[in-house]
């Protein structure tokens, strides 16, 4: 059983590592700021929403790219959505891949699109696990009686 301060320190370290590795950017800070007494679970809600949305979009993308005559416009629309969502929560690496994906779409480069799709899937699962770890640590801290220092 760790002490509160230790847990806090651990959490802070983990969070900053996420930033350093580029998983998160400043937008995530903004999200955290929005969480207050009236909205205590804001961040978790948004992140969960994002991953649901991302899964749906990735399925759609896989379907669209699997067709014979690929409708690049539709693909691009999906990618744009994903980019918007990822930038809203500050998932930086996902956002970057989305940008590359969009370029491939404009070039109508099928191979590139498929490659990007794979990358996005990878990044999404990565950042999902990171978030899960982060939330677990937060829960532990709350359980120990501490609060997250912003």
């Amino acid at each position, binding site marked *: 059983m760790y002490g509160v301060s230790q847990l806090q320190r651990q959490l802070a370290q983990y969070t900053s590592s996420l930033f350093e590795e580029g998983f998160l950017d400043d937008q995530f800070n903004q999200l955290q700021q929005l969480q207050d007494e009236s909205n205590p679970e804001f961040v978790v809600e*948004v992140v969960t929403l994002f991953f649901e949305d991302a899964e749906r979009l990735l399925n759609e993308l896989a379907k669209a790219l699997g067709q014979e005559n690929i409708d690049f416009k539709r693909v691009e629309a999906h990618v744009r*959505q994903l980019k918007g969502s990822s*930038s809203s929560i500050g998932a930086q690496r996902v956002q970057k891949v989305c940008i590359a994906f969009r370029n491939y779409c404009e070039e109508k480069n099928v191979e590139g699109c498929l490659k990007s799709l794979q990358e996005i899937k990878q990044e999404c699962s990565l950042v999902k696990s990171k978030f899960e770890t982060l939330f677990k640590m937060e829960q532990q801290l709350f359980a120990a009686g501490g609060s997250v220092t912003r």
Partner: protein
Amino acid sequence: MESCNCIDPQVPADDLLMKYQYISDFFIALAYFSIPLELIYFVKKSAVFPYRWVLVQFGAFIVLCGATHLINLWTFRIHSRTVAVVMTTAKVLTAVVSCATALMLVHIIPDLLSVKTRELFLKNKAAELDREMGLIRTQEETGRHVRMLTHEIRSTLDRHTILKTTLVELGRTLALEECALWMPTRTGLELQLSYTLRQQNPVGYTVPIHLPVINQVFSSNRAVKISPNCPVARLRPYAGKYMPGAVVAVRVPLLHLSNFQIYDWPEVSTRSYALMVLMLPSDSARQWHVHELELVEVVADQVAVALSHAAILEESMRARDQLMEQNVALDLARREAETAIRARNDFLAVMNHEMRTPMHAVIALSSLLQETDLTAEQRLMVETILKSSNLLATLINDVLDLSRLEDGSLQLEATTFNLHSLFREVLNLIKPVASVKKLSLTSHIASDLPMYAIGDEKRLMQTILNVVGNAVKFSKEGCISISAFVAKPESFRDARIPDFLPVLSDNHFYLRVQVKDSGSGINPQDIPKIFTKFAQNQSLTTRNPAGSGLGLAICRRFVNLMEGHIWVESEGIGKGCTVTFIVKLGIPDRSNEFKLPFVPKVPGNHGSTNFAGLKVLVTDDNGVSRTVTKGLLMHLGCDVTTASSSEECLRVVSLEHEVVFMDVCAGLDGYELAIRIHEKFTKHQDRPLIVALTGNTKKVTKENCMRVGMDGLILKPVSVDKMRGVLSELLERRVLFETV
């Protein structure tokens, strides 16, 4: 001859006579024959002899005479008839020729005589020419002397050398005993002996200038012979035995620069002269010749010219030296001024930073202290501290502003701003103060005043606040009226602003603001002083500690920078005063409006922006961003409704919503939606503000947004602070286009 043709006995007694006749005849004939020979001989020798014909005649005459006498020799004895005939023929011929010759000679002899006259005449002429040659030669000699003298004189530009050389050369050329130069003294009443030839250092003899002899010399430009006994000529003790040498004096004009006017030779009356006296050696019986006098005159003129050149040169050298000195002095002054300016700038820079920092600390901490629990006494003290430090901060700012204004280093910014809201803000700031003093505040903003203007908003606000603030400060009761309108060209020809010449152009207009108060007024005599800095108006009955005296000076500087004019009118003490100013502002056209910089209001403790209950509608088809935006706005206290599609948005939107945020980077067609919302609320004045949120600036452009009637455009990502600023700006100005 007493011979006859009869036979005569020869008388032997006449034999001697006969013999003598015989011999004489013979010699006569001989002579007669030899004369022509001689004539012929000499004539042949001479080249010119115009009378050959006469000679022939004469020759013939003589030959015949000789022949006659020769033939006569035969007639002494008994001679035959042939001899007699020959004799007769000879005689007849001789008679003819001699008569002819005699006749001829009548013509010739006057000619010969006139030749002689001509010869005499030519001889005289030759003598005359000789004389003239002599004269010319003498003149040439003189000329040579003069040239040489001039050369010597003009070879130097030094005044003393010129004069000395003149005397030396003159002395040499003319073999003078003594040569002296008398110069006029400073007073002009005396002549002083300045230079002499023989004496080394002339001791200052002076002679009054108005002696008759001197006047005589000065009145003519010729060399004048003067008596050796007059004061100017008596330089040395008379050492000669018989008589002193002849003396000549000539005037030397001394020219000054000021004597020369253009197109005008100097008048005689303004000239001053020096006197040159030349003495021939005594006991020499030499007299002054004309050519020598001429030489002296010419030399005197040359000396005058040389002296004037020397004077001019001296003058210009002096001027040049003076200029150099002045240059050095100016350089020094400039360097000192630069040092002073640098020192002042350093001082200002230091003051700027070093003084403001502690000031801010004091002000901030005092205001924090105010918030804590204090006793009444402590509260009073803290309030005083706060007030004083605020004053000090204002003073520092004012002084710095003013020095920057004077430096010319202050430059106005030019941004587009909302003119109406500026006035609103001023009123909001002043209303509380005015109501405390029970002053009524009325404002009249003209309806044709443009909504937006280009100019320095901060400084304009500062100016208006200062003017209105003064009005409030100096009024104890009554009312204050502020009016603002566009100045018409006719109002410019105002007697009160004579120097103001506004230039009207298409993209500028002149804003005229007038602030009238019914306060203590200003004495009309003091009006010119109020704009000078630090000059306090002493006649105020209420000594206002808040007035540092800089406010109006700064206002005037700002107004001037805005190419405007500010002036004050007052009818006297107690009758209130009116401050009017006109400034030039730019008119923004459509493209200018988009140049609004996005300046969010001060974040943080902004207690006055209260978005509590502000109804907003967020339309976004991306669930995540919709949730984030909703969370953001809720955090700021808004009442947020969401819509996930255009149709839903149109269904939900109502007049209660103040702002509609729509995300236009997703599939949502924001433009179409904006048009539809406009259609829905065309009849209503306070429709919701439509603001587009986008992260993509290529597709979504300000032009397009404006075209469809949107009121704002904001770029994602939006932070909490940014959203706060956006909302307050939107509510304030009803428009907000972020620059990309």
